[in-house]
C-alpha cells in the first residue's frame, strides 16, 4: 500500500509528528509564528481522546504541561521568542524535577517582540542558557517539513528516555514553508515509552539512582504517592541542602545527557570526504549552504557541509575531528554568531572560522556563502 502523503506546513507537521509520538496533552498560548501547532492540536487531540488547553500565558502553559506529564501524559507546548523567555523558569523546573516534555519554539527575530514574522536562529543559546543554573539541554533543529515531523517524534523519545525537557526549534522559514511529506506507517518509527517503576509504591523513590542515571518515573493517580519539588532534592524527592547530595544530583542531571552524546547527537555529512572548506549550518540556512557547496564544487573548490541536526548537546567530537583535517569552516547563521562561537571553541584555533551573520529578517542566500567559501585560504 502506498504511504500517505500530504503537502504540509512545518508547524502542521510538528503537530502531526507529536501525535504520532503519542502526545495526548497540549497547552499553549498563541504567538506568531507558532500558532498553527496549537490550532492543529486543538482540532486533532480531542478526536483521539487527548486534551488541548489554551492557558492564560506561556508560563501557565509550561506549568500545565509539567503537571500533565506528572499525571502520565505525553506533553507538548509550542511558542516563539517572547513566549520562550516566559517559559524559562519552568523549563528549569522540568530539568531539576526531571519531567519529560517537549517544547517547540519557532525562532523569530528578537530580542523582545523583535520581528514576529521574520526568520531567525537566535534562540539556540536560550535553549541552553535561558534558564538559570546548571542543567542538561537537548535541542533539535530541523531543516525541512519532513524532518520537523520526524524530529518531534525523536524529541518525545529523548524526553522520555532521558526524563528531561527537550526542545525543537525550527526557524520561521522551516515552520512556515510547505513541502511534501510522507507519513510513516504506525510502528515504522520507534516510539519510546516512559520507564515506569518496577517496585511497589512503598519502595518507590522518584530519583532512585539504583536504577541508573535516569530513574523510573511513576504517574500520579496510579497508586504511587511521591513528592516533586523544584528545590535540590534527595532520591526520595524531598528537599535537601546537604552539600554532597546536591553536588551528586546536579552532576547526575547533566551527566545523564552529556554521557550519552553518541545516542543523542545527529548530523548530516554532505560531500565531506575530500572537503577542504566545510560549511557548518543548520535549519533553513543549511538549504542555502547545500546549494552554495554545489556551486563552489562546480567552480572547482572542494567544499562540503556539516549539517547540525542536534544543536545541543553540540557535536563537539565531529567538529573537532574536522578541524584537524580541513582548511577552514564557514558558519552562516541568522544571528550574530551563536553557533560560530561553538565552532570556534571546537576548532581550537587550528583553522579559521568565517561567520556570516544576518539578523535583518532575510534568509542567507547561497551567493553570500559561496563568496565566504572563497575567502578560506
Amino acid at each position, binding site marked *: 500500500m502506498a504511504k500517505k502523503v500530504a503537502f504540509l506546513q512545518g508547524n502542521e507537521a510538528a503537530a502531526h509528528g507529536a501525535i504520532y509520538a503519542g502526545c495526548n*496533552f497540549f*497547552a499553549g498560548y498563541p504567538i506568531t509564528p507558532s500558532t498553527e501547532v496549537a490550532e492543529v492540536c486543538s*482540532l486533532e487531540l*480531542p*478526536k483521539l*481522546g487527548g*486534551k488541548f*488547553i489554551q*492557558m*492564560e*500565558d506561556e*508560563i*501557565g*502553559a509550561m*506549568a*500545565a*504541561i*509539567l*503537571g*500533565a*506529564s*506528572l*499525571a*502520565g*501524559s505525553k*506533553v507538548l507546548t509550542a511558542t516563539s521568542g517572547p513566549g520562550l523567555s516566559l517559559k524559562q*523558569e*519552568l523549563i528549569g*523546573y522540568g530539568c531539576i524535577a526531571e519531567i519529560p516534555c517537549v517544547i517547540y519554539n519557532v525562532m523569530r527575530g528578537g530580542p523582545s517582540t523583535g520581528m514576529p514574522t521574520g526568520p531567525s536562529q537566535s534562540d539556540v543559546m536560550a535553549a541552553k542558557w535561558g534558564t538559570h543554573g546548571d542543567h542538561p539541554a537537548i535541542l533539535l533543529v530541523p531543516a525541512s517539513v519532513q524532518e520537523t515531523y520526524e524530529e518531534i517524534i525523536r524529541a518525545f523519545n529523548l524526553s522520555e528516555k532521558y526524563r528531561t525537557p527537550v526542545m525543537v526549534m525550527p526557524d520561521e522559514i522551516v515552520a512556515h514553508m510547505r513541502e511534501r511529506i510522507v507519513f510513516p506507517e504506525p510502528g515504522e518509527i520507534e516510539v519510546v515509552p516512559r520507564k515506569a517503576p518496577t517496585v511497589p*509504591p512503598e519502595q518507590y523513590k522518584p530519583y532512585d539512582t539504583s536504577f541508573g542515571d535516569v530513574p523510573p518515573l511513576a504517574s*500520579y*493517580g496510579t*497508586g*504511587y*504517592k*511521591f*513528592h*516533586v*519539588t*523544584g*528545590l535540590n532534592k534527595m532520591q526520595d524527592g*524531598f*528537599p535537601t541542602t546537604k552539600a554532597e547530595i546536591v553536588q551528586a544530583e546536579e552532576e547526575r542531571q547533566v551527566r545523564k545527557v552529556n554521557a550519552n552524546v553518541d545516542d543523542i547527537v545527529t548530523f548530516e555529512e554532505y560531500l565531506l570526504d575530500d572537503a577542504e572548506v566545510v560549511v557548518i549550518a543548520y535549519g533553513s540556512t543549511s538549504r542555502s549552504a547545500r546549494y552554495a557547496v554545489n556551486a563552489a564544487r562546480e567552480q572547482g573548490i572542494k567544499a562540503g557541509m556539516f549539517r547540525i541536526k542536534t544543536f545541543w548537546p553540540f557535536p563537539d567530537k565531529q567538529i573537532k575531528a574536522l578541524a584537524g583535517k580541513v582548511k577552514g569552516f564557514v558558519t552562516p547563521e541568522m544571528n550574530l554568531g551563536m553557533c560560530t562561537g561553538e565552532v570556534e571553541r571546537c576548532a581550537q584555533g587550528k583553522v579559521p572560522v568565517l561567520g556570516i551573520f544576518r539578523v535583518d529578517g532575510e534568509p542567507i542566500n547561497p551567493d553570500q556563502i559561496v563568496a565566504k567559501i572563497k575567502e578560506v585560504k
Partner: protein
Amino acid sequence: MAFDYDKYIRPGKLPHIWCPGCGHGIVMKGLIRAIDSLQLDTKNTAIVSGIGCASRLPGYMDCCTLHTAHGRAAAFATGVKMAKPEMNVILVGGDGDGTAIGGNHFIHACRRNIDMTYIILNNKIYGMTGGQFSPATPTGAKASTTPYGNPDPPFDIAKLAIGAGATFVARGTAYHATQIDKLIAEAIQHKGFSVVEILDDCPTTYGRRNKFKSVIEMMNHLKETSVPVKAAEKMTAEQLQGKVLTGVLYKEEKPEYTTEYAKVIERAQAK
C-alpha cells in the same frame, strides 16, 4: 479518642519548618481532618503548591504532592486535573504566591471553574522571604519594604475569587480552627473551582513589626475582627466596619471545566 493525624503525615518528614505560633500548621490539621471526613483516597489526591512558607505544606502530606514554582500552583494543578479528571486536586499556598505572582493563574482557574479546591493561607505578608508586604497587607501596615507604612490598598481575596468566577468561596480563620475542616470539606465536595481563604498569622515577620505582643494577641485579633456571615446579616453597616466575614460566602452551580472538555472530546469524535 484523639484524632490521629499521623496516618496522613509522611513518615519521617516532621518536624515542619514553620515557626512556633505560625498559623499554617493549624490549617494543615484542618485539611487533614477534611480529607479524613471525606475519606479521600490519598493515592488519588494531589496536593499542589507554589513557593513560600504556606507552600511547604504538601511535603508533609502523604498524598501525590507537587511543590511547584512561585505562583504557579494553579497552572500546574490545571495540567494534573485535565490529564486525570478523576483525581482530587487540592491547591495550597500563601497570599503572596496566589495573588501577586500567581494572580493571573488564580483568576483564570476561577474563570474556568475547574474542579479543584484552592486553600489560600493568608497571613497578609511574604513570610518566607522575611516579611515584605503582599497584595493582602493592610494599608498602613509595617513590612520590611514598607518602613513608612504600606501605601498599597489590599485585595479582598474572596471577592477577587467571586469576581473571577469561582463557584464556591469561603473564608475562615486560624482562630476558628474547628471550622476549617468543615469549610475545606464542603469546598472539596463542591463540583467546580472552590476557594477557601484562611486568615492566619505570621508572628515572626508580621506580628513583630505591627505591635502584636504575642501570638495570642494575633489570634485574638482574628477572633475580634471576624464575623460569621449569618451573624452579619443582623448587623448594621456601622457595626460591620473593619470586620471580615467568615463562613461560606458564595456558592453557585455552573458547568465544570473537565466535564465540559469531555463534551468537546465527544463532539470531536462524533464528526
